[in-house]
């Protein structure tokens, strides 16, 4: 942390490590003029590049945009889209929109809980599968919908879901 009263070099906050993906983040920060209004956009870039936001990333972004770390943390935790934990090897997002809900999404979550022993927001102990929920994917015509590794699947049944989990397991 920065000590009170210490001289702060705003010009060059250094990325946490040598990873080349930080260049993407730097590009976004430059594009938005290093201003605090670019905070959400910058966090989007970090998450897109690294998959999640860790403490080092938040510190770096906060320093680059000259906002208190508390504000960066506040924004990162306020919005559901941002995650502070790395996701598992595979992700399974169950849509909990109204159409999916009345067409059996809760039963799909029960299936996942039974098969994997995790509830939404958790990752299996072997780091293989993360289970998440979405408010609404907008694929209501295909309810209930599930996103397996970024691919939307419609009219999902518990049996179909077990099959997909089996595929991942055998990989």
């Amino acid at each position, binding site marked *: 942390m920065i000590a009170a009263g210490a001289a702060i070099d705003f010009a060059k906050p250094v990325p946490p490590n040598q990873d080349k993906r930080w260049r993407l983040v730097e590009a976004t920060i430059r594009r938005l003029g290093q*201003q*605090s*209004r*670019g*905070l*959400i*956009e910058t*966090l*989007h870039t970090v998450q897109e590049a690294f998959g999640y936001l860790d403490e080092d990333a938040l510190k770096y972004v906060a320093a680059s*945009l000259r906002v208190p770390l508390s*504000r960066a943390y*506040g*924004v990162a935790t*306020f*919005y*559901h*889209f*941002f995650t502070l934990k790395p996701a598992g090897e595979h992700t399974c997002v169950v849509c*909990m*929109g*109204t*159409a999916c*809900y*009345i*067409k059996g999404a*809760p*039963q799909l*979550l*029960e299936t996942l809980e039974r098969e994997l022993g995790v*509830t*939404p927001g958790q990752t299996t102990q072997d780091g293989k599968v993360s289970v998440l929920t*979405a*408010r*609404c*994917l*907008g*694929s*209501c*015509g*295909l*309810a209930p*919908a599930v996103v397996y590794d970024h*691919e*939307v*699947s*419609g009219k999902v049944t518990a049996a179909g879901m077990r099959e997909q989990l089996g595929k991942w397991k055998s990989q």
Partner: protein
Amino acid sequence: MTPEELIGIAESEHESQSQFTQGVNVCVAAGCLSCQGQAVKDAFDQDIKRRGWEEQCQTKGVGCMGLCAEGPLVSTHDGRMYKHVTAADAPEILDSLGGAAVSRLTCATDIPFFSRQKKIVLENSGVIDAERIEDYIAALGYGSLIKVLTEMSAQEVIQEVTKSGLRGRGGAGYPTGLKWSTVSKATAKQKFVICNADEGDPGAFMDRSVLESDPHRVIEGMLIAAYAIGASDGYIYVRAEYPLAIKRLRTAIRQAERLGLLGNSICGTRFSFRIELRLGAGAFVCGEETALIASVEGKRGTPRPRPPYPAQQGLFGEPTLINNVETYANVPVIIRNGGDWYAQIGTEKSKGTKVFALAGRIRNTGLVEVPMGITLREIVFEIGGGIPDSRNFKAVQTGGPSGGCLPSEYLDMPVDYESLARAGSIMGSGGMIVMDETSCMVDVARYFMDFCMTESCGKCVPCRVGTYQMHRLLHAITQLTATQADLDLLTELCDLLKNTSLCGLGQSAPNPVISTMRSFANEYKAHVQDRACPAGVCGNHARVQP
């Protein structure tokens, strides 16, 4: 870009398209893409190449055709439509062009689902290629912008929009012309135009579909609005959960900039306008305008008390116009055909058409655009095709978590802003979820309260604590452990939240509870007094907690 150049682009596009004697349109909007629409499109491209038909048969990836449940959908230029098409079906469909249709895949287009609709906002959806600005221009696109810039004063544009009677399509139904006029009167060096594309209601996908199928229409609407109110910068605040819509918007903005339809001195006039995208990050409350502004500013999306309204002090403290995607999408047509023409459609107080997303226990799930004033029965039973599996209609939910559930006695009510409000619901952004007897209305109320509780931003106490307590009570009712005292307390909390919450989220959070308590009081009674769920939903399976 001059008017002549625009006409030139349209003409050369018409010419190059008329060279094709046949054509196939494949839906590549999100609904069909999630059932392999892209593979179908690729299969057509490959087979046309194999046959050497590139010169005579055109393939186009188009936007939503509406009937999402039957996807992937394919239409041909000789007027046929096919459903559930797979990549393997492409050769057979190509063989049939100009001959007899492939009957096993045919999707009838003379059914009420298609014939009862009136398309204004969706006129180009399923027809043009969303990723080519030339195709939009050929369909009269950007003609309204040119008309406004060359023939109309800002005041005349606002008059035309006022005359059309257009009201905000985001849900509240505030007169659009009045809003524009207020922002135009505000004096400031800089003003902003924001497009609210943070479609957060679960069960609503109209805005996503418009953005994916016809993004230029929204950009043109924003340009006209900016000209009318005197703004030079605009933002589209779109959900990060809609990657395809974001991609197509980015493409559209780039194309418009390249043709000089966005940027400095547009069409050689003194009017300049730039649009930037801002991605939402999954907070329902950001649909509320002051919260949305905070989010565009890079802050937490928490609302603030109004006044001052954004029309006076909005983004970065400057006067700001915020409208919904569908509102902007109506504007180019209003300018093209005139406000009087638009005002002929609909009812006395609700003009024009409304796009609805039909979902739930209904046969034809998908996207429909209907004139205001149509009855719920026509939407659900004629256009929607009724309830599948010979079950009975129970309720239709409109307006998402801020709306209500309308039972069968409201089926013959006309759909307009006032009627829906009188019936205890709201127009909302356009989600329409049909429920049959397998849905428990108390469980549905609990579901929406769970949603509001999770989405409450936590700024004001009535909403933060109230939604939690209401959810606790509804949870107890669905667990069949509640008492009459709990029910009384629930009623009291409805009143409290409605009257004391800071923003629309908290004020409208009790709506699903109030409307179900009113229309389905016997179900609440059964849960509390008889400890039984008439629909057989409650108490059976473990509740999912956030």
